[in-house]
């Protein structure tokens, strides 16, 4: 994939000839390579402009004034969305969530971030670029807005950290002991799946192999989440050390950070830090430990695909293939990257590891709830006063949390992203914890001004776009649900359509191949349950006639053809 990135970056697109050349080099068929290229939305088949602008399609961005921003760009560069200027200078494209939900409206220009955009600012940016400035010279540095953390004795992530200090535990413990500690800490996958981390390490540790891998999943793609971005900005050393501990525990000698392309601007800084670790002997050969070991980390850049956050899809992607999830009969801890035992952990999970060791498992267990000890990072965006990152102790009451954000007149909260749970007033007395409201990290707040169906439609568009396409329930099922939402929006739907949505969602949920399809219809069904009156309002009376069929529209084409033809005769 890095070869493809080189070509994409230099030539601004990957041509037919380039693909032929690359496929020969890698001894694969050209069409197989084309399959890889077309899977990722940041690889272009036609010139995408010397300066490529990506604008977030996510609903949060839309409610922050995205449309005005798009117009401003269109005016400034003179072409419409999805097009490239004639001089190949600028290209303007859509992209799913770019991980800047707290600083919207935002965009990426050549993968450099520009935040809090205004039409005026856009004019200025474009004219500066026209005058020869490079994107990285004028871009913004996304601020890490940490809105809340518990009292200092309870904070886990966002407090000062002395690099290398915790690494001394390597000399104290052998791998099994560290795994035991992590198991005891009940740390679970923070990407949203909440699989026990210690257990994962244990499995990988037990699988004997000549080579094992640690992969950090930094493909934070769930719309509305940006906690990993902030961790990478603020505490990258936690991540690296977490990976070192993981490697030591399972016996891996190679580590990789799968960094989503949207966060490419963080790559340089991370690489610098990695070389510093190397220089200081914390990475590389013979790392000091009770049982000395070799370990190094490299960065793998994604190319735009939400599904690559799924660990098996991520592994395929790292192998230079299409990011399709595997069937679940073999797990990566057995046969992962290059068919070797592999541990894939989320950024936040890995960052928690050195902290747990540093503070001691017991003080970690004292925090949070029984099932989910410790704290959790939440990315808050949408209609509230204080957007940004919240480090909360597990077990916090929802209302208390809402008060912290300063949100008022709330209609609903999308918890854990579009594939998570949609919360309404009735849920606000619940607690944020593994026992009750589990959350991967994304919290999007919507007030009463917002149109529920518009939000759901946006989610649905996202899933249709991001389905990997391999199984029919997800590929076509989501597409068909999207059409049903259209029908509702247009007021053509009847009661039967709601029944269809319920039935179809269930089928998609139970038969899809991976988590994407299994969870894509969650919010739609939650919404139907929690806001039945909104759906009812949109229904029309039950008849035996399909209102979506419009006779006038259906004959428009014919009328036009006949009109065009008959004019010359007269």
């Amino acid at each position: 994939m890095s070869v493809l990135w080189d070509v994409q970056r230099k030539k601004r697109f990957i041509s037919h000839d380039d693909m032929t050349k690359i496929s020969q080099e890698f001894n694969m068929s050209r069409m197989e390579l084309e399959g890889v290229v077309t899977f990722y939305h940041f690889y272009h088949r036609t010139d995408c402009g010397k300066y490529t602008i990506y604008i977030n399609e996510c609903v949060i961005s839309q409610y922050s004034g995205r449309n005005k921003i798009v117009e401003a760009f269109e005016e400034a560069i003179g072409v419409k969305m999805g097009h490239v200027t004639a001089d190949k200078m600028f290209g303007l494209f859509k992209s799913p969530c770019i991980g800047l939900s707290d600083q919207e409206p935002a965009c990426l220009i050549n993968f450099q971030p520009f935040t809090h955009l205004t039409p005026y600012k856009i004019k200025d940016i474009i004219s500066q670029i026209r005058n020869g400035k490079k994107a990285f010279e004028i871009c913004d540095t996304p601020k890490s807005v940490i809105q809340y953390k518990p009292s200092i004795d309870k904070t886990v992530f966002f407090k000062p950290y002395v690099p290398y200090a915790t690494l001394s535990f390597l000399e104290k413990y052998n791998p099994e002991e560290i795994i035991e500690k992590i198991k005891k800490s009940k740390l679970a996958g923070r990407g949203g799946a909440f699989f026990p981390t210690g257990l994962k390490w244990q499995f990988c540790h037990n699988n004997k192999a000549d080579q094992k891998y640690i992969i950090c999943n930094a493909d934070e793609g769930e719309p509305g989440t940006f906690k990993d971005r902030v961790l990478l900005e603020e505490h990258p050393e936690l991540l690296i050390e977490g990976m070192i501990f993981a490697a030591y525990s399972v016996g891996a000698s190679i580590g990789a950070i799968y960094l989503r392309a949207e966060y490419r601007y963080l790559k340089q800084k991370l690489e610098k830090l990695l070389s510093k670790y190397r220089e200081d002997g914390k990475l590389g050969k013979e790392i000091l430990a009770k049982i000395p070991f070799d370990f190094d980390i490299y960065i793998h850049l994604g190319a735009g695909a939400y599904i690559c956050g799924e660990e098996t899809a991520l592994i395929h992607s790292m192998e230079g293939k299409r990011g399709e999830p595997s069937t679940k009969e073999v797990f990566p801890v057995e046969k992962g990257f290059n068919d070797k035992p592999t541990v894939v952990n989320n950024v936040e999970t890995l960052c928690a590891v050195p902290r747990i060791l540093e503070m001691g498992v017991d003080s970690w267990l004292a925090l949070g709830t029984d099932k989910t000890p410790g704290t959790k990072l939440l990315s808050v965006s949408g209609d509230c006063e204080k957007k940004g990152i919240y480090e909360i102790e597990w077990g916090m009451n929802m209302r208390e949390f809402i008060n912290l954000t300063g949100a008022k007149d709330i209609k609903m909260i999308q918890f854990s992203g579009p594939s998570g749970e949609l919360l309404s007033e009735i849920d606000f007395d619940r607690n944020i914890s593994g026992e009750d409201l589990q959350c991967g990290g994304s919290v999007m707040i919507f007030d009463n001004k917002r149109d529920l169906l518009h939000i759901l439609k946006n989610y649905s568009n996202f899933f249709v776009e991001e389905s990997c396409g391999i199984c029919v329930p997800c590929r076509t099922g989501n597409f068909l649900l999207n059409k049903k939402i259209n029908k509702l929006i247009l007021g053509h739907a009847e009661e039967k359509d709601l029944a269809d949505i319920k039935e179809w969602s269930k089928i998609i949920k139970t038969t899809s191949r991976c988590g994407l399809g299994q969870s894509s219809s969650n919010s739609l069904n939650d919404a139907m349950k929690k806001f039945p009156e909104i759906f009812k309002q949109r229904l029309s009376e039950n008849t035996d006639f399909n209102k979506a069929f419009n006779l006038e529209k259906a004959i428009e084409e014919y009328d036009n053809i006949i009109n065009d033809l008959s004019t010359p005769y007269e």
Partner: protein
Amino acid sequence: MNNKVKLTIDGKSIKAEAGKNLVDVAKENKIFIPTLCYFKELNPLGTCRICTVKLNGKHTTGCTVKVSEGMNIEVNTPELLDNRKAIIEMLYAEGNHFCPTCEKSGNCDMQNHAYDMGITVTRYPHVFSDKIVDFTPKRMIMETNRCILCKRCVEEIKTRDGKDVFSFVERGVRTRVHIDYEQEAKLSEAEALHAMNICPVGAILIKGVAHEQPFGERKYDVLGKDIIPSLKNGKIKKEDHEKFIVATTSLAGCFGCHMSLLDIDTDLLDMLEIVEFNKSPFTDIKKFSKRCHIGLIEGGCANTENVHVLREFRKKCDILIGFGECAIMGGIPAMRNFISLKECLEESYLNGTTSEIGADIIPAHEDLPKLLNNVYPCNEVVKIDYYIPGCPPNAEHIWKVVKSILLGEKFSITHDEFKYD
């Protein structure tokens, strides 16, 4: 390795070799788990999802399960049966499956499943996909519109130097299988034929090789079990001395279904004892003179007149039955949905080989019905209560359905009557 384990499938206690594939184990024990992507030479792909079963209460695909001690597996619960049906229906809605014109008909795995499951119509709206039909490869034709993306060919067909011939491209709803021309040319005749044969539908075809097996000798020309359709409405209300009233019409169809209707021969006379025809080509009654119990619709909607007639039928009939493929999914006329209307008209009236030399007029007059942009299945215009599939449907099949609805009786259709290709 003789490592036996005990497991339960649908309540039946079974002994099997540990680690063996569940689909195979079930088959040995006469429990059939339908599959489309699974075939034994390959690793299980888990792409088609129709073998979805419940393993210890959790949904998973049967083809990816290796049996182990104590497993409790459910295969044929009503929910799972319906899921399977739903997926096949979704595949039918997603692609263009015009069985009557397909080379693979009778040898098609998916068609066979649809028969076995008694699918009469897809519950989803037809997408009428307009994807590439690729004639460029040396030996093959890739009909992408029929492809169900099972991935068999992608995984199985490689050149001798190990390169892929078929590949997935794009993602989401735009995902396709494309052929690499250079690699395709390297395949031997036998390898190419193998590709066509493993395709569970009619997406991969070999040029010059038509399926020449006569009817009765094709892969799936075997008798299956009877199909027992369910009736939705209650009994039809009428006075005892009155006859049932039936109306029929042919919209954008070929009248073949009406012809088939007449094929019950002298039974028709018995039928007339209880049934009276109102608006119908049989009686030549042009306008409804009374309300009808049943309306039989042949053909889909291709023009404004079809739509008006269909809506009229909906208003005047208690129950509407779509009979024949055209009424159900558009059928042969719907094949024009992939060509622009303008091109259709020009081909028919100006440029076609059968148009008169020097013809320069596309007929248009206020008295002529206007053509719709697409041919629509009837259920996209009005609600249809029952469907009788076929091209044309078997005469017995039609009358069994009509009679049973009229009399409110339970009935079954034999596999033979149900099959029509």
